[in-house]
């Protein structure tokens, strides 16, 4: 398909150049998010960053037209994983006190 080609569909079609621009920007955001997760030194902050990174990944899957994976990533990457990590951190903290 060439840039700007339109698919006949009852839905409004996003022009391909716009999709490409979206995809590139989200890819850059994901790279920045991953770097931020690695660079975070404080564990609590790192968990929050992991959660934000999960949202960014979900966004990535969305603009690459994989809504099922988006939902999985949102629930597991942005909610379940940070929750378990926070609980583990709270447990470790209490033992240290």
């Amino acid at each position: 398909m060439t840039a700007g080609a339109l698919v006949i569909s009852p839905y409004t079609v996003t022009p391909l150049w716009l999709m490409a621009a979206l995809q590139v920007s989200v890819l850059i955001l994901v790279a920045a998010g991953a770097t931020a997760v690695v660079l975070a030194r404080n564990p609590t902050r790192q968990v929050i960053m992991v959660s934000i990174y999960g949202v960014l990944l979900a966004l990535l899957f969305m603009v690459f037209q994989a809504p099922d994976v988006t939902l999985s990533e949102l629930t597991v990457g942005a909610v379940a994983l940070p929750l378990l990590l926070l609980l583990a951190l709270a447990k470790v903290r209490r033992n240290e006190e």
Partner: protein
Amino acid sequence: MTSPQRRWIFLVAAAGMLAFYLWGLIGLPGFGHYPGPYGDIINAVAVGQTHATGVVSAVNFEYRGFDTLGEEFILFTAATGVATVLRHLREERDTAAEDESSDRQVPVTSDAVRMVTLAFIGPTLVVGWYLATHAQTSPSGGFQGGVVLATAFVLVYLAGQFIVFKRLSPVDLTDAVDAIGAGSFAVIGLAALGTGAAYLANFLPLGSSPGAVNSAGTIALISFCVGIEVAAAFVLIAGELLEQTLIIREGDR
């Protein structure tokens, strides 16, 4: 080993890694060009064969149903493991965690947090239920729906209501629901054997119109069972871990 030597070893290894990585990238199919026949065939036949317009669910719960069964039992095993490790042993006495600095000022859950979390519980339940019951029609499914349903329970805890959270999800109940959800998936597969079809074959009526909620036979049913199982597993894990972590103070309600 000196520092320069280490750096050289790293640089050589990194260069080798980079070379292999680039070599691998060159062999990849072009962006958006799917080379295999399988996906295209599924796209062409899935809706007609299964009456599920959520084709990903059709693949997850029917064409590749056996794989999903294995995946589901990973989570089931994890939840069972947590429940086993953290269970009460015989002769183990349950003492509440002691607050070793009781004079400390404990921040109370603010009204704003309470308001927001309580307001979100209802919508979260609805979204979770919708996701778990609409796998056959649109992008959703039991796994996602189950986690969202479990989130509603965690919101109860976040609203400062740990007691209510535990009362809503006693370990015995979540344990049982977890097992029933996981077991139903396997049993639906066995029921297909009973009709003379293959394991996990879709033996229920597919419904008249593809994309209707009551269509797609076992796909809808299995997705729902998975939703129940995943919700129970996550509530169980979160509840057990919270119990290990929390200091329940006087007046915490």
